């Protein structure tokens, strides 16, 4: 894969994967003894989400649990079929239903799971996991030696060296960080263009999170991968991602380059998120100066509030917020920074 440098200089690198108006409603099924309700509503996990992943860039998707960010990852990986909206890979609409087409798609778009303790099959060795990834995507080579080389190469890439020390280990013989590296190596086995990393470090111990994040960044730079980094930790988005998109209750509320979004949050929810994040510089007792955090909780996605979904918790809520859902509105401070909030409606701007 030749680097994007061959192209004429552009303001932003090439868009690899783009989602437009992505929507996923899960039918709420009466499963087992659980459900007694008469109607069959659906859970609006993701509503009208658009984002773009660019070559050699990390886009962070930040949100609380239940905000739909993992569902977006699974939609992009085509593990779920979207209810509405489209996904384009290099501008081509994606329809990955069916085994062969899905396999072709998964060769280019790979998903890394949150929990390395769960995403590796406990009964298989590292070798098995990686060999399968290579074989499925036809990269195992002709001979046994090709395969061994490819395996060693994968492990070296994720800095599990020497490779032979790890190849025949079972997942439970590895530490969390090592497992996540194996999971990344498996994803790399397909030689993808896009990595969808769903909270890749949240299950890891603090001291080893950075190692994994740094590895991902390194891979991005060396392999020009487009990476979607899903996290609930907005501070790590600032550290790791080029762009950041914030989700709330299944919808995108703000987006822009990471530094802008974290340093000058526009949407009241982003502000709340940033104020709530632990900050060692704000020592005990120094809490009083921060904005008052709402006491509410995220809404039900089966019966979401009308208008802006954040309005029941928003300190700035206006009458309009209760009835009309705000579209993404550009914020002037940096290119591409937008927020879905009526506060930034042109008509209201002075």
């Amino acid at each position, binding site marked *: 894969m030749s680097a994007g440098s061959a192209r004429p200089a552009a303001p932003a690198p090439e868009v690899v994967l783009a989602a437009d108006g992505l929507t996923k409603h899960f039918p709420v099924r*009466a499963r087992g*003894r*659980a*459900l*007694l*309700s*008469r109607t069959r509503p659906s859970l609006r996990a993701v509503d009208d989400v658009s984002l773009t992943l660019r070559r050699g860039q990390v886009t962070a998707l930040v949100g609380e649990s239940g905000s739909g960010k993992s569902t977006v990852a699974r939609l992009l990986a085509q593990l779920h079929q979207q209810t509405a909206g489209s996904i384009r890979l290099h501008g081509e609409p994606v329809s990955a239903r069916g085994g062969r087409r899905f396999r072709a798609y998964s060769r280019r778009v790979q998903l890394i799971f949150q929990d390395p303790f769960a995403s590796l099959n406990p009964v298989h060795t590292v070798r098995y996991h990686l060999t399968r990834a290579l074989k499925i995507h036809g990269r195992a080579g002709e001979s046994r030696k090709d395969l061994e080389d490819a395996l060693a190469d994968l492990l070296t890439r994720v800095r599990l060296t020497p490779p032979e020390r790890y190849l025949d280990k079972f997942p439970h013989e590895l530490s969390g960080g090592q497992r996540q590296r194996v999971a990344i190596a498996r994803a790399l086995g397909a030689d993808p263009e896009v990595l969808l990393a769903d909270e890749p470090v949240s299950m890891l111990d603090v001291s080893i999170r950075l190692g994994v994040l740094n590895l991902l960044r390194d891979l991005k730079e060396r392999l020009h991968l487009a990476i979607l980094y899903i996290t609930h930790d907005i501070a790590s988005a600032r550290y790791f991602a080029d762009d950041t998109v914030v989700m709330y209750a299944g919808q995108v509320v703000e987006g822009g380059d990471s530094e802008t979004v974290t340093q000058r949050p526009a949407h009241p929810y982003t502000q709340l998120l940033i104020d709530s994040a632990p900050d060692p510089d704000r020592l005990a007792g120094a809490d009083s100066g921060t904005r008052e955090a709402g006491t509410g909780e995220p809404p039900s996605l089966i019966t979401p509030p009308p208008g802006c979904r954040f309005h029941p918790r928003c300190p700035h809520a206006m009458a309009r917020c209760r009835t009309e859902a705000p579209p993404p509105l550009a914020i002037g401070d940096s290119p591409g920074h937008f927020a879905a909030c009526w506060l930034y409606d042109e008509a209201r701007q002075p």
Partner: protein
Amino acid sequence: MSYLLKRIAFYLFTAWAAITINFFVPRLIPGDPVQALITKARGQLTAEAVQSLYVLFGLDSEASLLDQYVRYLGQLLRGDLGLSFTFFPSPVAEVIGDSLPWTLGLVGITTVVGFLIGTGLGTVAGWRRGSWVDLVIPVTTFLSSIPYFWLGLIAITLLTGPGSFFPASGAHDTGLVPSWDWEFVGSVLQHGLLPAATILISCMSGWILSMRNMMVTVAAEDYVTVAHAKGLSERRVMVSYAARNALLPNVSGLALSLGFIVGGTLLVEIVFSYPGLGLQLFQAVGAKDYPLMQGIFLIITLSVLLANFLADVAYLVLDPRTRREG
């Protein structure tokens, strides 16, 4: 209550499936009630009887299997289970009516009692691991590995006989006619003791074991630790926190394994000559009495379904998570 409706739909479907299996299995396979009757008599009936019995049972004309099936379903809808061959012309419903109360009494009560005692012992065994209670498991496992009938026969040999308190067979003193007087009820209890004890010994171990395992699992739950941390009495932690939650899977287990339990307990009736459905089924099988076999099998299945439903309701009551408002 769509949950209940769903369950009821499932039960109806199962009942239909049982009826169908029940209808086809004996018919697809050769066998002849008249010949069975003659053979059983071993020369006490003349060969000439054969033809008269065919006429009597209405077996001289051959209807197609499908016709018979449709007719059978129609009869069932009217609550008519047909006439028994062995007790011709007694209606199957009457034969079953005579036996069902005994089975319900013996198997029903012992199953419930076995469940309660087993669960109770299992609770203690799971809670007090490392004490003498641990002995309960191997002992009951061994006891439950003994076939019901063998245990029953040994019990009959050892505990009955002239002058013994325990009668060897029957459901009540044969000189008594069923009535609700003290004498009869006492006789029924006396006759029921040994069969009941046999069933209890054999079936309890399963409950003990599953309850113990659930208790062990639940004892490690945070809310049990919290209950300890709260300084609640050990008894309350055990009963109200651990056992109450450990019970839930056991209740659904009870519902699901009733089919197995009932099957096994029927043998006890055979051994103790207890005039219940098991004994009747056994004899009907020997006599190729399809209508009776089908009727008994149907009733057993329906009883198990009903018990399942009751267990479902019990689960609904026991687990608040299944009772969702709105």
